[in-house]
């Protein structure tokens, strides 16, 4: 089990009930990875099924959405395989929204 803070920035909060910051608890045996967190987000936090395609494409985060783990680009942290710890901050910033 792990407690993390998830932020949806750059207009992405529009599909998460306009809430930018979320406290998320992933109920799963360690190690909990970012992939597990994304599965949890998709299954419990997106209310409208049509909005899933805005966030997910080909079983991964849609290109154009920047994922930071503790302010670090997730490409440098192993992407979905990065192991989360209590207190981590995962932020998703959309470059597709706006205008």
């Amino acid at each position, binding site marked *: 089990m792990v407690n993390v803070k998830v932020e949806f920035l*750059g207009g992405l909060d529009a599909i998460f009930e306009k809430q930018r910051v979320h406290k998320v608890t992933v109920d799963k045996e360690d190690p909990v990875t970012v992939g597990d967190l994304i599965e949890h987000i998709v299954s419990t936090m997106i209310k409208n099924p049509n909005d899933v395609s805005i966030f997910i494409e080909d079983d991964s985060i849609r290109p*154009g959405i920047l994922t930071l783990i503790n302010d*670090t680009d997730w490409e440098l942290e192993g992407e979905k395989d990065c192991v989360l710890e209590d207190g*981590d901050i995962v932020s998703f910033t959309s*470059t*597709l929204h*706006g*205008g």
Partner: protein
Amino acid sequence: MSFTAPSDPVNKPVKVKISQLCELCHSRKAFIRRPKNLSKLCKQCFCLVFETEIHNTIMANNLFQRGERIAVGASGGKDSTVLAHMLKLLNDRYDYGIEIVLLSIDEGIVGYRDDSLATVKRNQQQYGLPLEIFSFKDLYDWTMDEIVSVAGIRNSCTYCGVFRRQSLDRGAAKLGISHVVTGHNADDMAETVLMNILRGDVARLEKSTAIITQSSGSPIKRSKPFKYSYQKEIVLYAHYMKLDYFSTECTYAPEAFRGTAREYMKNLEAIRPSCIVDIIQSGENLALKTKKSNAKKKVVKFVDGNRCTKCGYLSSNSVCKACMLLEGLEKSRAQVAIENDTSADGAARNLRALEKLSF
């Protein structure tokens, strides 16, 4: 609605491997892998490199002259916010000697532009730059809300794009400024090149990649200092510097971000990030052979510097696109006016329209 900055991380990395260090300073953990050249940098080095690259682009292309007044097209979004911040920072650091003005256009969309203009006003305070706001209502006597109610939501982006582009020129002319700077970045440029290729729009293709666009028909030139900057880096820069920007979806374009070219670009970038700059390079080097003039065939050439006979602004035809759209709108509006029996109001509007024409 006030700005909330992204949270700072609270968990410090326990052990940092040598392979995780910044490639420039070798002393801090790398936070970003730059898509442009795949180098790994820490926050401080990334911001400095990003700023220096913009500066090098400005110097290499001689974008600014000392003593020049610059209008930054400010929408409150991430690109224009970073642009305003960056220009002020570089002007202070490298002493370009330019005077920066924020120029904002109010399209008149209730619930959307209110938020974005509030952001621009906060930017005005944060950066200490003068701000001028021009509205569609003042310039064209139509708000986007009114246009959508007449013309429908499907074509609203066309009207808005045409009017807004001319509005920046009109606003700059009224302020006596001859240089407008916009926040178009490398991703936008690559998308434009791609769309013009797909449309076979050869005339636009040659101009779309120019970093400075100027015409003898208009005293106002445009430049794009972010031409070679990736959108990802602009967003991360705004994130790390905790810049206050606005990203609400436009009320009338809720699906605009699903543009085909943009999605295609994002997927290409995921495969090979350098393709964005490669496409821009291709666009820059595309040039048509000069057609040999045939005496028999009368080829209509594109005439640069032509002016609209109605409003006097730059136009490819005798009447510019904005005036054409306005004419269509006025016809639709007249019917509505007659139904409501507001003929006196109609006469007043015609008078205002006549007063706005320049001869």
